[in-house]
């Protein structure tokens, strides 16, 4: 009995303080992919490899668009792996919950 009490006191409180205290994801955690609009060459490699197909590329007469939806993204990191120009990076951000699907879309555009 006394041993158990000693152990308990030694261990202390293990419950996380999240969400009162922000919790940073560990090193190497694959979170929200971020598109860097100034580096992207719109080559379309990431569109080809994305397993669930959440990255789409579109070309209209005067502009190119690359859209990525976090809704459906499995955070595999394939896009980061194949991108030659380091235009897509996975961040440590994981607080992605949203009330609408549209909020999870990120788009980059470039005029031709």
């Amino acid at each position: 009995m006394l041993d158990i009490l000693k152990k308990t006191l030694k261990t202390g409180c293990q419950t996380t303080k999240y969400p009162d205290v922000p919790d940073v994801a560990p090193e190497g955690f694959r979170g929200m992919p971020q598109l860097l609009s100034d580096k992207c060459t719109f080559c379309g490699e990431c569109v080809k490899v994305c397993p669930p197909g959440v990255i789409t590329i579109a070309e209209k007469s005067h502009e190119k668009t690359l859209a990525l939806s976090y809704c459906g993204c499995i955070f595999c990191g394939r896009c980061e792996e194949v991108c030659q120009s380091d235009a897509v990076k996975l961040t440590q951000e994981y607080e992605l919950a949203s009330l609408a699907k549209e909020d999870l879309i990120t788009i980059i555009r470039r005029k031709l």
Partner: protein
Amino acid sequence: MTVEDEIEIMGQRLNDKIRKIYGRSLHIREVDAGSCNACEVEVNSLSNPIYDIERFGLHIVASPRHADMLLVTGPVTRNMELALLKTYNATPAPKLVAAMGSCACNGGIFGDTYASMGGVDKIIPVDVYIPGCPPRPQAVIFGLMVAIGKLEQKISKTEVKS
């Protein structure tokens, strides 16, 4: 003011009321609609001593009849389609639905195939989307807090021109 506007305002008021009702405690029924079980493992860890969601008044319950919220995982396989619909109908109103994991949000890695619906929102209305494959327990806690209006959503649609 058109009829649509009025409906929207009414919906907004109802939402505010729901938030008020759920402000203190929430009973959650977890529905596995064909997930790979990684999401379930994260749900299990929500009630362990480390994440302990009971400290927020969130309880996982054993029946949809006791629940205020359905926490749905998986892309909704054809075999689970009817079961999910029945579970939704068995939950007393007002009810919330949270789509947990990329599968539940949009089909994820399983997608929209002959065997799966590709997302919970194809069958029942979803109130909060929690992306992740699987989402960290912290991400799920954040999602539940967003659903009941205790925390603000952090992400919004972004468009960058260059």
